[in-house]
């Protein structure tokens, strides 16, 4: 019986026949996965938990997990004061507030009798704490209150979404057109074009930064969102991904449409595009990730005009400008992390299989 229980507990995935005993290698594997959780997920979760802590807890680097804040009480005629608990030797505890500066012997007064000031040793005071989610970390920058007017989140969000959506649409259309030409037509120079596209795959974007700046400047799109959208709209990865997929579409379908006197553009739009939807969606997801997270090129093109900043740039400027306001920085980090996390959780299987099959970036 015990033996069977042991077998049951140490069995790996699979049915009775295929399952193997839980061996040393599995032990190591699960240990590795545990380490992975610790290294991958814990920092992200820690950032999230820190972002809902009140300013004072963040500034004092409170490493407790829960958002614990000192109770603030409104006292008549004096204003809002942090609440402390005074533990006298006798065992009784009173809620007090500090009536003067903190010294070895501090002046305090009970909450219910504000006039009644007396001296207690500092060591007998401990903060009266409650668990409170600090929504102001999020709401202050988002609603532009309490001196957070410079962080125009709405504009950043709009710019980021505009760049992402426009660039993805353009990328999808022109890459699909090129892929259609390369996969379904025989024409002179097809090999040349294919080789040219392979060549662009080998040119890292950061070695053409300076001269790309000149080109973009002379087109008059420097400093505008189009200067970020257009230069990277044609992706060799996208062309190859779509070309490989379109090669599997049977030519007979196109011939049948030609019999019905459909123009080539309509064949492309009405037959090829709907049929290559799986590949298109993979490319769309990739493009969204690239554009949403893009940093260096927007930094060069858009940095001088705060009205044109994307979320990533806005967040950088924010962190640079208010280096001490960690509670706002963390909250805004979490805000910019949420959309991409949601997309990921939603389309996780799509993304991971899509990248595994293309294997390129």
């Amino acid at each position, binding site marked *: 019986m015990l033996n069977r229980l042991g077998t049951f507990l140490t069995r*790996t*995935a699979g049915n009775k026949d295929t399952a193997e005993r839980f061996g*040393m290698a599995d032990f190591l*594997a699960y240990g*590795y*996965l545990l380490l*992975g959780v610790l*290294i*991958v997920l814990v920092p992200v979760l820690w*950032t999230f938990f820190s972002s809902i802590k009140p300013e004072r807890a963040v500034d004092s680097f409170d*490493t407790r997990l829960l958002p614990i804040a000192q109770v603030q009480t409104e006292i008549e005629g004096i204003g809002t004061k942090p609440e402390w608990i005074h533990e006298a030797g006798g065992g009784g505890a009173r809620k007090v507030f500090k009536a003067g500066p903190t010294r070895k012997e501090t002046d305090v007064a009970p909450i219910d009798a504000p006039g009644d000031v007396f001296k207690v040793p500092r060591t007998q005071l401990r903060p009266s704490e409650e668990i409170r989610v600090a929504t102001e970390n999020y709401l202050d920058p988002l609603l532009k209150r309490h001196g957070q007017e410079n962080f125009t989140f709405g504009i950043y969000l709009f710019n980021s979404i505009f760049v992402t959506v426009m660039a993805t649409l353009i990328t999808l*259309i022109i890459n699909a*057109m*090129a892929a259609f*030409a*390369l996969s379904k037509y025989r024409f002179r120079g097809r090999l040349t*074009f294919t080789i040219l*596209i392979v060549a662009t795959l080998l*040119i*890292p*974007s*950061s*070695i*053409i*930064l*300076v*001269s*790309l*700046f*000149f*080109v973009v*400047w*002379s*087109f*008059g799109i420097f400093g505008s969102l189009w200067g970020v959208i257009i*230069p*990277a709209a*044609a992706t060799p990865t996208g062309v190859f991904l779509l070309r490989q997929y379109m090669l599997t579409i049977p030519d007979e379908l196109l011939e049948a449409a030609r019999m019905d006197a459909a*123009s*080539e*553009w309509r064949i492309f739009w009405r037959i090829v595009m709907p049929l290559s939807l799986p590949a298109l969606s993979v490319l769309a997801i990739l493009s969204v*990730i690239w554009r949403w*997270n893009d*940093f260096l090129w927007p*930094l*060069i093109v858009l940095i001088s005009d705060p009205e044109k900043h994307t979320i990533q740039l806005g*967040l*950088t400027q924010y962190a640079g400008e208010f280096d001490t306001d960690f509670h706002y920085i*963390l909250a805004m*980090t979490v805000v*910019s*992390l949420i959309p*991409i*996390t949601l997309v990921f959780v939603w389309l996780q299987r799509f*993304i991971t299989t899509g*990248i*595994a*099959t293309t*294997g390129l*970036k």
Partner: protein
Amino acid sequence: MSLAAILMMMLGVLWIGGGSVWLLTRRRYKLVQAPSFLMDLVGFPVEYAQSIWGRGGVPYALLLPNMLIFGLFTFVPMILNFYVSFTGGTSILLFNRPWVGLQQYADIFSCETIFEPRTCSNAGFSFWTGMFNTLWFVVIQVPVLCVVALVTALVVNKNIRGRGFWRAMFFYPVMLSPVVIANIWNWVLHRKGVLNEMIGGTRDQLSTMAGMTGFDIVVTVLLAVVLMVVSERALRSSDTPSLAWTAIFGALLALLFGWANPLSLIGLGGSFWLGGALALGLVLIVSSESRLARIAIIAAGILSAALLISIQFDAVFDFGRYRPVNWLVQPNTGWPFFWLVFVFTWSHMGFYMLILLAGLQAIPSDLYEAARMDATRPARAFWRITLPLIMPTLTVVLVLALIRSFQIFDEVYLLTGGGPGRETFMIVQNIYEVAFTNNNKDYGEGAAGSVLMAVVIAVFTFFQLWITRRQSEL
């Protein structure tokens, strides 16, 4: 309004206006077909090309927008880079820039000795500092990235519960933007951050425990038992020792070496690394399945017993007060560089893991079944089946990782800003700062730096391809 903008306007008017007229005169659209009309309008150039040149002209029209963007924004800049690197001044008008010939390159190369950036001119100093830092980074980063990605892919490819979840978890950081990654790690690695807090807490607890009486004896006995169990498990199977247990044994041995510090007898440091090297040798001997494996393990066991007796554990575990390390700021410690490698691996490993995973899943399972029939050990199956068959994928991963880590900018710029001093100053940051952030924007020098960087990347890539080609032929 620039010339290009006027041209774009004219193109737009021609496209929309001319296209509408052309389409409406040739085809009939009902009102409900408005979307269909719009779609025809988008493809108007293609339709027009078909009407003029027939079907033969269509592929060229289809390729045109893509190739135009490739040409204008990739190939032209590629050529232009050379031209800009031969010009000087700060003008952004291309024809306004004076031709200076090789002056920019001469500036970069004006060093007494290139391998010491301090002896260079200002331009040369930042360039070569960035270049050597980047080379150093690439040499460390690429193997680390590939090994970690391969190990993770192997683990995720195993028959474990919740494979999809684990795969997604390791891939998740790839989705995050560099700014978010930098903020997260800045927060964790802050001097008063959670990492220092955790290390400090653990050390304090251990110190308190070490202060208790009898600690030395208890730990010695415990470790002796553990060592005996591990070495027994390693030696248990009939013919060849178990690799996994040997690895654990090796790790323990390295730890013992670090604690006992035998090298201090002859006045040297680095005992831990000596122990690590010995442990690695042990693992290699066992994995090569030589006859010496058993003898080696037994010898290491005797050695570890001798070390164990010589260690005073209450002294080893008394750490004293912990002074928090400023991980990203403290100069001359190597920590900023270490965390750079760590964060880069953290944020990019998932991508390479997925590619390797696809490669692993393409290996036919009959091979492993046949190996199991022959009672092949898992380690041998890895060296003889998995590694040779994954080699083509691994080569792709190597090249991609190389090109990617050569271009590192975002993470380092946001985490350390190149500091402390210039310890993590990378080549792309040099190009960016020279060309775009200085007061007198020196585009020529930035372009010259880019050309040199392109040359280095090309040399590296071909070198790597050449080496891996020879390996995969063997």
